[in-house]
């Protein structure tokens, strides 16, 4: 189209195609990225965004099609060649080494020669940090950084490559808290002003609307829509390009306070049909729960006189939890989970979410305090918590819940579907039928049972782990970031499943970084800040702004 890179076109692809076996991941992709613009690539999970980006970063070799930079045909495989040509990538799962300091990580990527000059490298690093508002302490080991900081480091690292002109961001905001997203988008603006070409991979439509100059929508490996900002685009147009004929039904928050599931619903495993309830919200709540809500900062329970409210399933009293390196992460934590209630926990990442979740799953011993489940104290390891009816969906299921080489079915057999004996072993056919018949698996659109779990996409792993927890119909579900990095359709399916599970009587503790999600699902909200668990707050009486303030400044705000 254009001749020799006029119009500032940095990179153009023509008919790019990539197949994995019989699966066509990308089919005939035409894309053009101009210098000084933000080009968003929008699509659901599994639409082929990652494959496309990996071809542009040289990880995969395209099967068909050409790539041009500045109008000249180029080969980008392997990544070192792509980097030579000035392409940088900020990965979703950061390419950082936790055991090394930020500066060492930068030296690994940006340095050359065998000696590195700490002083000058650090200076350049701080310079770039200051220029784009990407503050990172160069001397801290990466494992001590939270996800937002890690991302900033990853961006600094990319910017320090000698001739980088085009930067690919892979789902960058999926690891950020709402307050950080704003700053991130501002930073993208600065990069654009300095003439970088930016490819922003995302499934969040509001981000595209907020910052992109151009958008390409991928669905099932093909480009379905392409537009520039001046041409005018609407959220509705983008959604339909992304999802095709399917239109997502939004999940609505429903009033479940005090609602008790019927025995019938519990036995049959179906959530009871939702009927709007006209009663006031706190009508059948115990008075002490009410008073707790009115005075959230007061200590709610006094050691020595445990008052077990009705419907109480799990209680953590005066808990203190240590981190990976023995440091105290949380102290004086009091938490009560009730039947059929979703308790949402907000907080900036790294404020003890993982530690609290692990403590409630028995993976991490309490330093002080007690956990009571169904009136009985539980102090053992994960086995005891499992038997008490606790199910967990960890923060990073790919790392913590996936046995490499196992199929989905084998994961289900590990913990989830009930197994039947067949001669000396497991009746696998029965297990597979049970899995395929299960409503949870269908509702979550689980991948085929025989597929190896370590070859699944992040979204499919998340679905698998959730389905496994749901199938067990646990008494208590501890779930961390269920919608992180997933597309709208899946998020809604998951949220509906969680609501359904709560209605059937499970007490749910939900960690999330998405305040909308927390407000939509939670019966009560709590905030992790400064080693404390604040709250509970009533979602109807507070708002996202006030919760955000607590996340940043605690109760003094």
């Amino acid at each position, binding site marked *: 189209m254009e001749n020799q890179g006029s119009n500032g076109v940095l990179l153009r692809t023509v008919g790019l195609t990539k197949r994995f076996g019989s699966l066509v991941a990308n089919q005939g992709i035409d894309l053009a990225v101009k210098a000084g613009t933000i080009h968003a690539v929008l699509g659901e999970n599994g639409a082929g965004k990652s494959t496309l980006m990996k071809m542009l970063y040289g990880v995969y070799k395209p099967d068909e099609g050409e790539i041009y930079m500045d109008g000249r045909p180029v080969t980008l495989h392997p990544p070192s060649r792509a980097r030579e040509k000035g392409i940088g990538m900020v990965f979703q799962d950061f390419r950082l*080494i936790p055991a090394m300091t930020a500066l060492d990580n930068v030296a*690994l990527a940006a340095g050359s020669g*065998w000696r590195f000059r700490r002083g000058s490298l650090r200076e350049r690093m701080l310079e770039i940090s200051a220029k784009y508002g990407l503050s990172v302490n160069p001397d801290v080991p990466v494992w001590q950084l939270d996800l937002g900081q890690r991302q900033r480091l990853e961006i600094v690292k990319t910017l320090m490559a000698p001739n980088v002109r085009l930067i690919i961001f892979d789902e960058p905001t999926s690891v950020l808290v709402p307050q950080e997203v704003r700053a991130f988008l501002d930073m993208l603006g600065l990069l654009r002003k300095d003439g970088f070409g930016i490819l922003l991979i995302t499934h969040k439509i509001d981000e595209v609307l907020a910052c992109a100059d151009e958008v390409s929508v991928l669905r099932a490996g093909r480009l379905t829509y392409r537009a520039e900002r001046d041409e005018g685009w609407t959220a509705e147009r983008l959604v339909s390009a992304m999802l095709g004929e399917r239109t997502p039904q939004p999940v609505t928050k429903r009033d479940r306070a005090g609602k008790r599931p019927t025995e019938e619903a519990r036995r049959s495993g179906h959530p009871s049909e939702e009927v709007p309830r006209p009663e006031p919200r706190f009508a059948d709540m115990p008075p002490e729960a009410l008073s707790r809500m009115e005075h959230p900062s007061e200590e709610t329970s006094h050691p020595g006189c445990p008052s077990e409210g009705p419907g109480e399933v799990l209680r953590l009293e005066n808990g203190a939890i240590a981190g*990976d390196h023995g440091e105290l992460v949380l102290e004086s934590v009091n938490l009560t989970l009730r039947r059929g209630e979703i308790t949402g926990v907000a907080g900036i990442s790294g404020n003890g979410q993982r530690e609290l979740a692990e403590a409630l799953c028995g993976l991490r011993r309490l330093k002080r305090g007690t956990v009571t489940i169904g009136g009985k104290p539980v102090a053992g390891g994960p086995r005891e918590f499992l038997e008490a009816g606790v199910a967990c969906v960890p923060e990073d299921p790919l790392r913590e819940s996936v046995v490499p080489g196992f199929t989905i079915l084998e994961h289900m057999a590990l913990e989830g579907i009930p197994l039947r004996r067949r001669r000396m072993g497991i009746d696998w056919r029965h297990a597979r039928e049970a899995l395929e018949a299960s409503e949870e698996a269908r509702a979550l659109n689980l991948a085929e049972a025989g597929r190896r779990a370590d070859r699944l996409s992040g979204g499919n792993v998340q679905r698998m782990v959730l389905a496994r927890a749901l199938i067990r119909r646990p008494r208590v579900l501890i779930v961390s970031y269920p919608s992180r990095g997933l597309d709208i359709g899946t998020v809604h399916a998951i949220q509906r499943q969680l609501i359904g599970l709560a209605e059937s009587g499970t007490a749910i503790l939900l960690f999330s970084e998405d305040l909308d999600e927390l407000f939509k699902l939670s019966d009560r909200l709590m905030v992790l800040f400064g080693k404390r668990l604040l709250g509970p707050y009533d979602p109807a009486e507070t708002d996202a702004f006030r919760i955000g303030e607590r996340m940043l400044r605690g109760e003094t705000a």
Partner: protein
Amino acid sequence: MIADILTGALRSGTSVMLASQGELISERAGVINLGTEGCMLAGALGGFATTVWTGNPWLGALAGGLCGMLLSLIHACLVLDRGANQLASGLTLMFFGIGVTAFLGRSFVSEQIVGFNPAPIPVLSDIPVLGEVLFNHDPLTYLSMLLVPALWFVLFRTRIGIILRAAGEREEVLFACGVNPRLVRYAAVLAGGFLAGIGGAQLSVAYTHSWVENMTAGRGVVAVAMVIFAAWRPFRAMLGAYLFGAAQALQLTVQQQGLPISPYFLFMAPYVLTLAALLIVERRKRSSVPEGLSRVFAADADG
């Protein structure tokens, strides 16, 4: 007597120390080489034989290093190219080393060499106690003392060190940086074998001036243990190796004094001490274990 034991600690600990520094390089890059014992033996025999033939202990030390390297090459090929299990390969290599050196070394058992001899450093060696302990050794021991700070510098202050450690932590990150982790690991395993070989040569050419079948007697295994005991840090590995040497020296001293303790019990003492050291060391630093040590890199990494 204390001075004797300390001097002996350095003298008999140096071979373990060299081997442990080599193993440290290898493990930092993510490959554990239990065959270190075999590499040491190969080095001990190769070094001794070369010294017999040429009369030059320096050539002997070099040849010892090369022999160790050759043996570790087998390990590297099996583990890095064929994807063999590191532990299985290493263990087998150890017994292979014991056997092959016993076979090839039969004719050298009665040989005599001059080898390395203590070369007291002028002035410094006259310092009471300290001079005797630190500055009255063979040249190989002095060199090995310089090796430790040098290795520390390379590991933590140069880009090569960063690349090496990255290979042991997350190879996919290194791969994404355009460096082939397999090559780095190859180099690290070979360097480890070279140092283990020199350690073995120190034993035969500098310390005992003789070749005896299976003369390392588990020092290579102790060296591997020392690396873990030292949490993959060069100076701590040196300390651990000298501790082992001290136990050896103590055993010799006790024997010389004619105390009524079974010699078999005394032979056991250094290993018991090593076990005790491993027991005492806190396991608090989970993050100090190179992440990649237990994983074997799949060549077609998509990272």
